[in-house]
């Protein structure tokens, strides 16, 4: 076996054996059960309210909630970053502190194997887990409501899971970046959590502030309101969690027709029907590419940082 895959194999084994991973799986599993339960209890009302959407009943399993517990989609958006951070925050610095990094690098392997293998291993674990959970919810929902998903619904769910993997791997890469930069695992974990909190709590607040401050006060024209709205939206989209929620909402709610403001002219004459899968995909294309780009930037930074570092034993 190629040395690269030897490292990947070991990393996966490490993840699977660790307590950390068990805890995360337990957490996500509870999430599944919880969100499925609340979806089940609200599904009846949700269906009777809008008949036009009844065709996409199965997707509702992932998006509706009775208000006591958030739906699956929100849970993944919330726990996904935690999962990514937990998988990556000690990727490099733990090896360094244990003194295994210098031993590893004195083997005949290229240096980037180490960081690439860490990323690939975590990505494999994350994908397997998210897909397993997604399919689990699907399976249990199938048993509970007895209506099989249409191929389109299935397709939407798969794309939802792919976007989720992408989102989690963004946080994973950010955590790996911090683990390369900071020598202490606790520092890097804290830094990653700080970024996560910033984007999920403070960033919307800040955007709100800016939006209020810059709102056109005099001579309000539709054009100025529209451009202001677009400016604010562009700001919110700097946050990866916003990108993720836009992308996944569109995937799981086919009735979402646009992610920006629509004028009356655009709505006039439109048939109030759900979008086909291809169109939904087109709609979230920028969001997905944005997430991918953010992930790539984080990885590139940690790669460069790691390649330039001097590896001495335990420091």
């Amino acid at each position, binding site marked *: 076996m190629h040395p690269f895959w030897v490292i990947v194999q070991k990393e996966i084994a*490490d993840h699977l054996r660790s307590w950390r991973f068990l805890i995360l799986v337990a957490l996500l599993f509870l999430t599944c059960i919880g969100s499925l339960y609340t979806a089940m209890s609200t599904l009846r009302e949700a269906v009777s309210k809008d008949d036009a959407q009844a065709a996409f009943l199965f997707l509702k399993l992932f998006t509706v909630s009775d208000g006591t517990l958030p739906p699956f989609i929100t849970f993944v958006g919330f726990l996904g970053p935690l999962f990514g951070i937990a998988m990556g925050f000690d990727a490099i610095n733990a090896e360094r502190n*244990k*003194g*295994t990094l210098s*031993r590893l690098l*004195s083997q005949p392997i290229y240096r980037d194997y180490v960081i690439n293998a860490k990323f690939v291993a975590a990505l494999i674990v994350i994908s397997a887990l998210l897909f397993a959970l997604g399919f689990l919810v699907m399976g249990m929902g199938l048993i509970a409501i007895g209506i099989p998903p249409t191929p389109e619904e299935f397709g939407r769910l798969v794309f939802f899971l792919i976007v989720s993997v992408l989102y989690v791997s963004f946080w994973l890469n950010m955590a790996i970046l911090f683990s390369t930069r900071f020598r202490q695992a606790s520092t890097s974990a804290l830094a990653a959590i700080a970024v996560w909190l910033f984007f999920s709590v403070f960033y919307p607040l800040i955007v709100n502030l800016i939006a209020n401050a810059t709102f056109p006060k005099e001579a309000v024209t539709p054009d100025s309101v529209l451009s202001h709205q677009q400016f604010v939206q562009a700001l919110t989209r700097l946050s990866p969690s916003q990108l993720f929620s836009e992308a996944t909402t569109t995937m799981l709610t086919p009735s979402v027709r646009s992610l920006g403001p629509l004028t009356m002219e655009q709505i006039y004459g439109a048939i109030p029907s759900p979008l086909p899968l291809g169109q939904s995909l087109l709609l979230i294309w920028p969001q997905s590419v944005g997430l991918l780009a953010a992930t790539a930037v984080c990885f590139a930074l940690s790669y460069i940082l790691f390649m330039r570092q001097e590896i001495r034993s335990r420091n």
Partner: protein
Amino acid sequence: MREPVIVLEELTKQYGDHVAVDHLSLTIPRGEIFGLLGPNGAGKSTTILMMLGLTEPTSGSVHVCGHNSTREAIEVKRKVGYLPDDVGFYDDLTGLENLLFTARLNGLSREEGTARAQALLARVGLEEHAGKKAGTYSRGMRQRLGLADVLIKEPEVIILDEPTLGIDPEGVREFLKLIRQLSKEEGLTVLLSSHHLHQVQQICDRVGLFVAGRLLAVGDVPGLSRQLFGQEAVLIETRVSPCSDSFLESLAAMDGVTGVDKTANTLKIHARRDVSADIARLAVSAGESLHYLAQQEYGLDEIYHRYFEGGM
């Protein structure tokens, strides 16, 4: 001279203004045990990292087994086993699994790797602990596991950075014996760095004295001692009582004696040649009782101290 295995030419490493290694040139032939000796922070580890291609030299070149360490690090690392100081293992894996991981990184199959790992664990005396997690190993056991880890790739050269740090004296003795034995049996070239003079002295064919990034002297221990102490080639230690002043005076005046140091009743006499018989005769005729008389060769300790006292 035998085929050179490690060749350093004008090797220099600078960190900002600080020169860690300063135009170091050194050649180590196949099969030799070479001790790189120096205080902490002398640049020993940096030199070793450059040999493995883990750090790039600022200028100069390193060749190990005919490969340039900076450009062909992979080829070098295939042939060189490196044991860092305070080596780390994956605590959650057993000793055997740790070795197996290294073996597979070196392209061995699982079966080959397991067989070789077991043989090596037996060799370093850890076969009973093979199934235990590496996290439970003591410092000495970790060091021996480290040696097995280094040998699993069947290297031509092994580089040990402070291999005896933190092990008890008995452990050190066994460990060094093992290295010596391996070197002789397998024809391994060994480079070990240390600031423990006595240990290095025990097993090294040659030593290099490395201070502040520069190699001050190279040679075997007696050679170094001649090179450094020149005329005062012999040190005689003796204990006499009552050790009168007149005895000391006549001792200092004796032909061939270059200096006398007195601590309590113990005298250290530096001489150009072996004058122990004369000293004994003098002591008896001066009415002193002679308790102990021994000739000592200058050890690395003295060599070392001489350097630092000299402020070089």
